[in-house]
C-alpha cells in the first residue's frame, strides 16, 4: 500500500520538477533579455544592429565569436580604444556597468550569445567568474 502511494507520486514529482526547471530556465533567459533592453538596447539597438560606424553591432558579431571570454569584462567595465567588428573599425567609448552582478552578467552574456543570430557556445557561471578576474 505504502509502496503504491510512493509510486503514484512519481509523475507528480516529475511534473513539478519540470515546471520549476522550466520556470528557472525561462527566468534566466528573461533576465538576459530584460537586462539587454535596460542597459544595452539604447545604443546597440533592439535588434543589435548598432549605429553606423559609431556603435558596433551585437548581431552576427565576429568580435563576440572570437572573444567570448572578454565579453563579461566589456560589459562590466566598458570599452575604450579601437576595436574591429565585422571588418569595420569602431572607436567610441562604451560606458561601464559596474552595478551588474556576476549572475546578471552571466545571463546577459548568454542572451547575447544565443540571440541576434549569434550562435556562440554559452558560458558557465564559473567561466564568467574566471573571465571577470582577468579584466584590465
Amino acid at each position, binding site marked *: 500500500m505504502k509502496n503504491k502511494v510512493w509510486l503514484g507520486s512519481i509523475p507528480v514529482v516529475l511534473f513539478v520538477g519540470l515546471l520549476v526547471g522550466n520556470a528557472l530556465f525561462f527566468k534566466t533567459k528573461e533576465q538576459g533579455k530584460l537586462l539587454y533592453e535596460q542597459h544595452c538596447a*539604447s545604443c546597440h*539597438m533592439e535588434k543589435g544592429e548598432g*549605429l553606423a*560606424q*559609431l556603435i558596433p553591432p551585437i548581431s552576427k558579431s565576429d568580435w563576440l565569436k572570437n572573444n567570448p571570454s572578454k565579453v563579461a569584462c566589456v560589459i562590466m567595465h566598458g570599452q575604450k580604444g579601437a576595436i574591429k567588428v565585422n571588418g569595420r573599425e569602431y572607436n567610441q*567609448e562604451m*560606458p561601464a556597468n559596474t552595478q551588474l552582478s556576476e549572475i546578471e552578467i552571466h545571463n546577459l552574456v548568454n542572451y547575447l550569445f544565443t540571440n541576434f543570430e549569434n550562435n556562440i557556445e554559452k558560458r558557465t557561471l564559473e567561466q564568467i567568474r574566471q573571465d571577470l578576474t582577468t579584466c584590465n
Partner: protein
Amino acid sequence: MKYSLFTLVLLWLVACQKEQKLPILGERQAVQREKDGKMMTDTIYHKIPAFSFVNQDGEKVTEKTFEGKIYVTDFFFTTCPSICPKMKQQMLRVYEKYKSEDRFLLLSHSISREDSVPVLKAYAKKINIETKKWHLVTGKWSDIEKMAQQHFVGVKEDPNEPGGYIHNGYFVLIDKSKHIRGAYDGTNPKEVDKLMTDIDILLNEK
C-alpha cells in the same frame, strides 16, 4: 455600389490629406495695430530667434543658414549613452530620405561642453553625413540652453546622470518663417514616420 462607396471614401481621404495643414505651436500673442484708420488684431506666433553657432567644419551657422528652408532640429551630445544613439538612428532615416531635397536641412545642437569642433567632425564622419545638409553645432552653453528653451526642449547639466546631462529627445520641425510646426519623440520610429509625413506636407505648403 460597394466599389463606388469605397472610391468616394478614398477620394474624401485624399482630399482631406491635401487640405491638411500643420498647426503653429507655441504661445501666441494678440497685437493691436492700425490699418487704414481701423484697429486690427494680429496674432504673433512664437518664432525661433536669431542664433550663432559653429558647425562640425568650424563654419559659422546662423538663422540665415536656414533662410527659405524648412528644417528639423534636436539637442544631443556625442557621448550620450541614453537616448541619443536611438535619436541619431532615427534622424539618419530623415537624413537619408531628404538629403537631396534643396529646401530641407537638419540641425543638431550639442549640449555637451566637451563636444568641440573636432569631436563633432569625427562624429559626423562616423555617421557619414554631409555638413551642408546636416549641421552639428556647438556654442556657448547658455546660448544652447536658451535655444533649447525656444524649442520647448528641456536640457540640464546633471553630474549624477550617465553622460552628465539630461535632455529630452524631441525632433522639432521648423518652417521657413521660423515657426514651430511639430514636435516628435525622436526615439520612437512611429513618431518619426509622422514627422516625415509632416515634412512632406510642409514642403507642399505655399
